[in-house]
């Protein structure tokens, strides 16, 4: 058998797509299924180069529907499997994701967001947030980690596999075109060296023994006959989701205690927010910073605590308020005014946020 792909800590200067490929290797993912789309292509490029050396597999499918459904198939056998996509590919991925939600199939999907709607740009956006959290004909029983840079991509890709398998929930690592294509430093490590134990995978189908003789056969279905049955199923899914959601909710905050304005951003935008807040603090502005790491479940309670009694919440997105909708959902009842700073499909710089906050504090 192949040795561990990463034995000891390795510091490298690479693209985010390369980071994801290495993280999936380190997480002991056995197979990737995928269809090309910019800006996630290089995940496949690296994976296909590395996979044979580490006894891993790859299947290039005919489209993203197939990429999603083959991933479901692979996972059902108890194999740690993943796919990656973006933009219109993420739109198509909603169909397999709804099956995974219903049948609790722990697929991992890396989404490198690009501009929308439609084909739009191949570059960057945060416009796939609603879709990743609540896409399809259901109620969004998924976990979504929004990453802000290479270390996140490494850490949360590994974590995504564990969350998925521990809770039997489809899990999305939400990146974007910037993170996919940019180069910055990252420390890659063997998860075991950080005390991370990879969750054991279990076969949904194909367990040992003759079905009907040694054990019951397993039947996995997604269709129900009556409303009443479905209500029970969806309520079960909800109860299951609620049972672990507090446990996995993640966020980051800084300078919130005495702040008058809280700047909220997720993903790569949170870096601009953090930098802006740091710079504003140097100039004496009382500004705080809050970053949801899990977008689903959303750290609403924590955000509510952070913004209580503040003058304003500045919500920053490279989208038209997709995250803001989660904020108002969870913060409804509060009266702290919310200001939106939305640049759909376009990056946000710390400089413009500094200006924005200054104009608000005048």
């Amino acid at each position, binding site marked *: 058998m192949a040795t561990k792909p990463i034995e000891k800590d390795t510091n490298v*200067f690479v693209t985010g797509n390369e980071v994801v490929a290495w993280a999936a290797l380190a997480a002991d993912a056995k197979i990737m299924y995928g269809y090309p789309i*910019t*800006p996630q292509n290089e995940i496949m490029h690296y994976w296909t180069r590395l996979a044979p050396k580490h006894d891993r597999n790859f299947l290039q499918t005919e489209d993203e529907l197939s990429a999603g459904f083959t991933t479901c198939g692979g996972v059902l056998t108890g194999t740690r499997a993943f796919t990656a996509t973006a933009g219109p590919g993420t739109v198509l991925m909603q169909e397999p994701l709804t099956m995974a939600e219903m049948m609790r199939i722990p697929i991992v999907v890396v989404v490198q967001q690009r501009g929308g709607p439609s084909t739009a*740009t*191949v*570059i960057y956006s945060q416009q796939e947030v609603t879709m990743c959290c609540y896409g399809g004909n259901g109620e969004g029983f998924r976990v979504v980690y929004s990453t802000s840079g290479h270390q996140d991509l490494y850490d949360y890709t590994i974590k995504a596999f564990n969350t998925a398998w521990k809770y039997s929930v489809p899990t999305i690592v939400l990146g974007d*075109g*910037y*993170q996919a*294509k*940019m*180069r*910055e*430093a990252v420390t890659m490590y063997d998860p075991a060296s950080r005390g991370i134990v990879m969750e054991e995978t279990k076969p949904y189908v194909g367990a040992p023994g003759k079905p009907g003789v040694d054990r019951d056969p397993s039947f996995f279905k997604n269709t129900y006959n009556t409303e009443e049955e479905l209500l029970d199923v969806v309520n079960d899914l909800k109860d299951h989701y609620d049972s672990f959601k507090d446990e996995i909710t993640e966020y980051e905050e800084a300078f919130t205690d005495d702040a008058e304005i809280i700047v909220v951003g997720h993903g*790569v*935008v949170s*870096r*601009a927010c*953090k*930098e*802006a807040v740091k*710079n504003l603090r*140097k100039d004496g502005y009382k500004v705080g910073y809050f970053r949801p790491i899990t977008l689903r479940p959303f750290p609403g309670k924590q955000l509510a605590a952070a913004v209580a009694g503040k003058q304003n919440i500045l919500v920053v997105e490279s989208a038209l308020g997709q995250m803001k909708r989660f904020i108002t959902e969870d913060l409804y009842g509060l009266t702290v005014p919310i200001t939106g700073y939305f640049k759909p499909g376009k*990056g*946000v*710089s*710390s*400089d*413009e946020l500094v200006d924005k906050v200054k104009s608000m504090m005048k």
Partner: protein
Amino acid sequence: MSDLKRIMLAGEGGQGVQSVAAILSEASYKTGKQVMYIPNFGVEQRGGVSVAFMQISSEAIGSPKFDNADLIVALSDRAVSRVKMYVNPNTIYVYDANISEEARTHLPKADEVAKIVEIPAHEIANTELHVRVFNVIIMGAVLGLTDMVSIDVIKEALEHKFAKKFEANPALRDMNYTALEKGMSLVR
């Protein structure tokens, strides 16, 4: 604030701005700096303006792209237009002498930037050295205008990257080094 430097290189597809940025950013990462490099990319593989965004700092780096560049290098007519919105009073602005009269009207005025430098990199490459080292001259110019990394580190990087070629043809090494130094001297 911090020692953050924001650098933007823009040119035509063939002019090699991405490899300049890749070598420079990797080299300064190796010297222990915080570095971020992001290429501009689009639907067209060929035919668009190629832009590289680099940031170097001793502190953690924020957004991959930025609004105001500390150093801009524009190498073609279209590049001059493309970088316009990144110019600010602190910008050091470098452009190749080869651009058209039309394009010159889009250059920032001397009092709009910290410094504006015309360099005949194109001409030097074509007449004195070789088209292929055009981007090495540019690399030199960037080095000359920032303290991001020492020239030796870059030489080492080139040494590493072109090991085989330099071995096969040592004159190539010399030409690259000359180009690098030429580039530095152009902006001094």
